[in-house]
């Protein structure tokens, strides 16, 4: 658990732990994530990466410890609209097209200026698939359609659960490009990975979760 505390962290956790039925899932761990930083959470299957992200997103209550977001204790209302969570389940409706799915997302989360769902679809390499029902896309293409949300939503904090899964080389490069642009804008990102995919950004800090036997 190696993190250096930078100044004015956007997201900060101290002694954070989570247990399910009295069995510890992860922690206690400390982490601090500043603006413009990317933190890669690594760990084996079952080490609690997804659970950590769900706790930080406010979907699960933390078992112990405290989380601070932008200097104040984490509250769901404070996080809403400023954080974007991308989970294993992509939240795409199979019977709707990519564009229809993204339009729905934009209506809920807002839209960055100068970008439309159609333009975002083109930028994630799905040009020509915008009107295709998501059902007909491959697993990697579905992932790209979900990644288009990262372009569209004006969120400062990204919580990405295995964003590299199912993607080809170009897709992995795309995620790295998105992360670099986000960091350059001053955004913070927490990314989980089981370690099989090489993560190219050398400046990113790493947080290792150990499997608790």
């Amino acid at each position, binding site marked *: 658990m190696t993190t250096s505390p930078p100044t004015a962290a956007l997201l900060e956790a101290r002694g954070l732990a989570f247990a399910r039925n009295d069995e510890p899932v992860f922690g206690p761990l400390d982490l601090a994530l500043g603006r413009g930083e990317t933190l890669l959470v690594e760990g084996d299957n079952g080490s609690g990466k997804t659970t950590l992200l769900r706790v930080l997103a406010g979907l699960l209550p933390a078992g112990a410890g405290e989380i601070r977001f932008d200097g104040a204790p984490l509250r769901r209302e404070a996080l809403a609209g400023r954080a974007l969570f991308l989970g294993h389940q992509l939240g795409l409706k199979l*019977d709707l097209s990519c564009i229809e799915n993204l339009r729905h997302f934009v209506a809920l989360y*807002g*839209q960055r200026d100068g970008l439309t769902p159609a333009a975002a679809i083109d930028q994630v390499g799905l040009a020509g698939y915008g009107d295709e029902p998501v059902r007909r896309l491959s697993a990697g293409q579905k992932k790209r359609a979900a990644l288009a949300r990262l372009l569209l939503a004006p969120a400062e904090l990204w919580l990405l659960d295995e964003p590299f899964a199912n993607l080809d080389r170009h897709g992995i490069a795309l995620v790295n490009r998105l992360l670099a642009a986000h960091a350059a804008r001053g955004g913070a990102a927490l990314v989980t990975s089981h370690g099989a995919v090489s993560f190219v950004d050398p400046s990113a800090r790493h947080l290792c979760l150990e499997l608790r036997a």
Partner: protein
Amino acid sequence: MRPGSTAAACAAVLRRDLLLAWRRRGDAAFPVLYALIVATLFPFALGPEDALLARIAAGIVLVTVLLAMLLALDALFRPDLEDGSLELLLLAPQPLPLLLGMKILAHWITTALPLIVIAPLLATMLHLPAQAQAVLLAALLLGTPLLSLLGAVLVALTAGTYRSGMLLALMLLPLTVPVVIFAAGAVSAAEAGLPHLAPLLWLGAALALALVLAPLACAAALRIALDA
């Protein structure tokens, strides 16, 4: 940066759910066919005697509509829970109870409204007198949204459990007893030529209460369901 307004978000949720129902419009026919078949079974079982059927017609239509709605209720939040859409909805910078209210409205439009449309057909088939049919429709228009709202709370409560269909039926059916009593009471009063406004007003009062409270309860229950 332009944050989405609440009205736009509500409209988007309603539009998406209606669009999804339209894309799978074959599924919407199932509750209607089910209600048609169940209501047809009664004359076969009881015999085609006009007076007997007319006396129990309102009850048959009400219970049939209730059971058909129960059949479709599980699909209210489950697909969203399974494909991750619910997490997106929960984390959106919008008031969750309002968004869930829109989902319940879309569900009512796609499942209950077709049943209300065929209700006069069922009632006529069972010889319900014409003067009672308008009251039956009014009772259904007030009673079915109430059932949708009550059902939504229970669906939200059982969303975390695996195969909750039977559990849902066991929890919801006792709660529907007052709805059935007031709705059937209004229709039988109309048949007998008695004042029938009071039971309808009771249904309306319950609906007003549920409209306010059920979406709030749904939101709280779904947040708990996602803990699992």
